[in-house]
């Protein structure tokens, strides 16, 4: 696998033409009908937020994705070259990925008898053929560019440094939830564009893992505690029985097993 890839989306360059969304539909063979927000059939949209700021919405392909971490069967996987991919054949349809995703990206086929989770796949099949994702290829203004994530981070920083007046000094996705493969540059503070700026700056799966890692401890301590309690209370009753009625008590103790 090659190095981790990603997308850099520069909101100052986006003109809201929607070519990315159309190209996505074609590349992923989705129904052509364009919807206002993300759905099972629309994996990226451009919407105007604030005044003349066009913002793309799509899966961020987190470096440590919550959806991958929460899926009980591992139906979602993070590929080393970036994409977070879904395997319908083992998916239970529990939709915990939708709850877990900090960006509310995964969508579900609510009106299907065999529903799937649907979302942007960073055009993984195209990456395999050495092509960039369809959206990046289609973007006329290079508002969306594709490349190695490290290169994109450097590019974002270079743009911020070269024209600081043009940008809000932050790369969204650099540290959010521990970093995402999709990075954003904006002319205004991100909260004005409805970005969730309250998300943690560490990988969210840490929160569940630091609890789940205690499972062996709970089992061992619990088994010890319950086993010891059982032994103690049993012993106490046996002693009490032996003291009360010597003859019968001894008989009981013999039949009771090895713990005398």
């Amino acid at each position, binding site marked *: 696998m090659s190095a981790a890839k990603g997308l850099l989306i520069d909101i100052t360059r986006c003109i809201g*033409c929607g070519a990315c969304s159309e190209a996505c539909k074609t590349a992923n063979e989705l129904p052509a009908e364009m919807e206002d927000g993300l759905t099972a059939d629309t994996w990226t949209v451009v919407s105007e937020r604030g005044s003349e700021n066009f913002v793309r919405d799509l899966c961020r392909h987190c470096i440590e994705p919550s959806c991958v971490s929460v899926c009980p069967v591992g139906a979602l996987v993070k590929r080393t070259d970036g994409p977070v991919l879904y395997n319908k054949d083992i998916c*239970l349809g529990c939709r915990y990925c939708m709850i877990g995703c900090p960006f509310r990206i995964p969508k579900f086929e609510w009106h299907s008898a065999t529903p799937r989770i649907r979302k942007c796949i960073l055009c993984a099949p195209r990456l395999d053929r050495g092509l960039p994702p369809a959206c990046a290829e289609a973007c006329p*203004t290079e508002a969306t560019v594709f490349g190695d994530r490290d290169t994109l981070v450097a590019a974002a920083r270079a743009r911020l*440094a070269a024209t600081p007046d043009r940008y809000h000094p932050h790369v969204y996705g650099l540290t959010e939830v521990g970093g995402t493969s999709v990075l954003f540059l904006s002319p205004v503070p991100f909260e004005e564009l409805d970005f969730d700026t309250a998300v943690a700056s560490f990988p969210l799966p840490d*929160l569940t893992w630091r609890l*789940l890692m205690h499972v062996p401890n709970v089992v061992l301590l*619990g088994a010890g505690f319950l086993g010891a309690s059982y032994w103690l209370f049993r012993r106490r009753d046996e002693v009490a029985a032996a003291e009360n009625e010597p003859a019968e008590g001894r008989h009981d103790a013999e039949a009771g097993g090895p713990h005398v």
Partner: protein
Amino acid sequence: MFERLRSSLTPWRVLVALLLTLAAVIVTVRFAFGLGSVTNLSDETPWGIWVGFDILAGIGLAAGGFIMASVVYVFGIERYRPLVRMSILTALIGYLLFITGLILEIGRPWNIWRCIVDHNFHSPLYEIAWCVMLYTTVLMLEFSQVLWERLGWHRVDRALHRFLIPLVIIGALLSTLHQSTLGTLFTIVPHKLHPLWYSPILPVHFFLSCLAAGLAMICFEGFLSWRFLGHPPRMDLLPNLARIMALILVVYFVFRCEDLAVRHALLEAFRPGLPAFLFWLENLLFVIVPVVVVLRSARRMTTGQLFVASFSTVLGFIMHRFNVAVSGMQLIHPTGYFPTWQELVISMALIALGFVAAGLAIHYLPVTRPGGADASAGAGGTYRLPWRASTGGGSTTTTRRENSMRPDIGVLSVLLVCALVLPATAGEISVPDRVAIDELSNLYPAVDFDHSMHLEVEGECTGCHHKPFGNPAPCVSCHADPVAPSAFVHELHWEVEECTGCHQKQAAGDLRCVSCHAAGLDPQRLEVIGLKGAYHGLCLRCHGETASNASCGLCHPER
């Protein structure tokens, strides 16, 4: 024939039959046309009442099974033996209903077995799936005693009896794990769940509350089987359970308030509004009403008081689970979810199914008898300790113990563990004892920082940290990330210097755009826009700045 049929048609039975028929129709529609056809679930609200009520609350209310089995078999508090079978039956029915509900709830139930072969140890749901599978098996084995007894297969019964203690201990461990892990499910969404319900140690909240809910359900059932089956409630035992429940509730509530205070969220509970209203309604039902009722009942508790205390706790508990799974998320991101009538019917049908199953089991199996391999010999209120079961006689000690108050030591020690160990564990999870400061370890040796000591000196987290406790923030989240590589301002230089003064290629006479604006992303010139962007940028400078007033067709004819 008709006479018999007519006499068995009570209004309740007709109602249940109608409800189950309606539910069957809804289930058919759900499997034919998808979840969206019968529920108000959507991409905005992926989990609704079926998760909040049928699954989260259902499992918690079935906690009585492991609690009573541990109390009697492990802690040897024989007095409560008459309640064990009924609690285990309730738990078994609860878990079977939960599994039924789950099959309706998940989108691709034919893959439900995948948990066995496809592993993800990082997923709380994976842990829950395994625990529920194993614990349901344990419950079936525990309950099967009743079946063997009914069939008169004493050899099987005795063989099972030998493994009863390990089974009970395994059951208690599995329950402790998945009851708390149901809370862990929501720890991964700190910014999607309202702070009055979110906590990084939600599993502790879930575990403590399920202990109270399990006990409440046992008391509530005592009342139900009195109303519907005519078995008088064990007023010699149930009030004690209600008192223990009240004690756990107090521990739970104090713990929860402490947790809120530590995370600076306690004030939210006193800010007028819907969140505070839901919080207080939930805790009024779950904690305040039952505790007040139990305290007022003093020494003699009436069946009425027992009913009010336990029913209130059950309601409040359901509300807590629902608030975590649905309402608490809605408060942050309102989606206007309200269950459809079909969702409600299915939930009610599951409850009805539970009643039917319990009724049948009690009717056909010796559930209400005290239990133990030779329980029939111990008629008259003396019950054997399990390890005595295979021997004759020996009832004197148990009779003596029944009259003493000592057995409560076992229950108290469980409580003590909850009250002391769990909050301590919680502290250990949230506040590191020592911290290695090693960001600049390439320049200076790493610092081993005594975090606990400084916390003690400083008194509060915010003495050093900007962000409140529970949201660790590395320095870069505030100190802007672009550490400028250079402060080169191109325009400034352009005014005083000709292009060729700096740019080699142009000096050599190569003035094509592509010599600067690379066709792809050029790692050497990251601050320079690429070729396609530069071209379109030139167009847009005159032809409108947005797509709506630019005309692509001017250059790109429609194909």
